[in-house]
């Protein structure tokens, strides 16, 4: 679904933000992109949406090079919720914000109405339907941008730091939404510092450092590599550290506290 072939990107200032990235993401995969501030995660995402074009190499989305299509065409396939929601909210009301892209894509009014109602309900925003997006809190704005994207049903959904400003309950709901999207066959890219949020979702994990992909694999494999994580300044999930610190332990780390508790109870017997 998404292919990076030896992609490098140099900013006009001369800073190399991507350095020979090769990466293949299949349809229906859920991929977390992690790494320290400035590692190139957001630049990577902007190459999928076509907002940035590679200085070297090429990026293909659904088999088509991003240089051979327009960002408008790509946006039908790729929905992205940016880190700062203020960069993408501009309508007079929450409802109009959600309807904007749908009307642009030529959906019927009946479908627009249904999709808007569905999205507002899913993200607990129905009460703000007629309000200006500007009165929403930071966390609510982030949920609105996500609702807008899901409403037009793109094949690829990209979430850039989705948990910023979200409390524990909202994070749980967000994780549920990601699982729901995964089960409907969407391709999902999540860029996040929030390792504790990502861990129970058990995505494929891509580790970035200085514009390069330095780690790539199943969450359990990548998160167990302490040296790799340290060099990329990525924290290890608490339950993985706990698993690693046990003298005798099961092969795979615990996904949640309940699983750890069950294993310990079993060992005691």
């Amino acid at each position, binding site marked *: 679904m998404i292919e990076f072939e030896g992609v490098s990107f140099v900013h006009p200032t001369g800073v190399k933000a991507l350095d020979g990235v090769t990466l293949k993401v299949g349809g229906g995969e859920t991929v977390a992109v992690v790494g320290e501030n*400035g590692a190139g995660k957001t630049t990577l995402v902007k190459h999928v949406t076509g907002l940035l074009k590679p200085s070297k190499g090429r990026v293909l989305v659904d088999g088509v090079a991003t240089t051979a299509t327009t960002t408008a065409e790509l946006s039908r396939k790729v929905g992205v919720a940016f880190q700062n929601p203020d960069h993408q909210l501009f309508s007079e009301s929450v409802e109009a914000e959600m309807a904007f892209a749908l009307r642009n894509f030529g959906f019927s009014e009946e479908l627009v109405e249904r999709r808007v109602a569905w999205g507002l309900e899913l993200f607990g925003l129905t009460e703000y339907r007629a309000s200006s997006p500007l009165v929403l809190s*930071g966390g609510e704005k982030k949920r609105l941008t996500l609702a807008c994207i899901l409403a037009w049903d793109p094949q690829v959904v990209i979430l850039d730091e989705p948990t910023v400003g979200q409390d524990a309950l909202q994070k749980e709901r967000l994780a549920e939404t990601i699982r729901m999207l995964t089960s409907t066959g969407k391709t999902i890219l999540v860029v996040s510092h929030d390792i504790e949020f990502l861990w129970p979702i058990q995505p494929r994990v891509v580790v970035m450092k200085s514009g390069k992909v330095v780690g790539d694999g199943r969450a359990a494999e990548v998160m167990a590599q302490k040296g790799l994580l340290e060099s990329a300044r990525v924290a290890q999930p608490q339950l993985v550290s706990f698993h690693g610190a046990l003298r005798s332990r099961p092969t795979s780390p615990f996904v949640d506290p309940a699983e750890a508790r069950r294993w310990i109870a079993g060992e005691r017997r």
Partner: protein
Amino acid sequence: MPAMLEVEGLSFRYPESRRKAVSDFGLRVEEGEIVVLAGPSGCGKSTLLRAVNGLVPHMYSGDYSGDVRVAGRSVKATDMRELAQTVGFLFQNPENQIFMFSVERDVAFGLENLGVPRPEMRARVDEALRLLGVEPLAQRAPHELSDGQKQRVALAGVIAMRPKLVILDEPTSLLDPKTASELVGLVARLRKELGTTFLIVEHRLDLLVGVADRMVVMSEGRKVLDGTPADVLLGEEAEGYGVAVPSITRLQKALAREGLVSGSRVMTSAELAAAVEGPGGI
């Protein structure tokens, strides 16, 4: 002696809202304490912070009752300019507060506004740059810095004002975990070296367990929990109020209920593993 921060029976309702954002809230923070304020979105944390730095009621009007005193002075009776010398505020996004052409000028900005004499300004800026470890960046333009560096520079600007009380509003939410824990380390260092008092709003409680003296939990405008990190995180109520109890702490609690581990401290992953495999364990 007055406490650094005293909030007594504070209630506040914004004009456009039917519900009180803060309701009959009381809090006492002693000098040099690090207090974390937690609770779900919309619980009134931001309004409370505004009531401490004076934005409420000086910039946001509404129904206000009760009193907030910082170092013994009533916030509602003190003008913002004077308050700014006692209370420092660090925003979630440092881009909201750094904007000058060089880091050094940015850190000096607040002092220039107050008309602090040049030699003293120089000394205070240098000290703040040193304490925050950003001296090498003094001549750089803020927009060239990484997010973590920007957040340190913004905090240096706050510290240069020598506030007695510093408020941090989700200071780590844009930072990667390592950079975030370094920032938390700096908070502990500033408290130790300058005796600064901190009031911190943060969702990522795992970062703060080791440095916070107290955790206060708000729900629907009220204070519902107030105690040491262990009291709050190991207690039975926090999760019900939407507090993000770290996963390893949830495991510790589950094991404690079964009598497998004991102790009244919040443990790290390694400590919990040692306790599980220790005497009486598996």
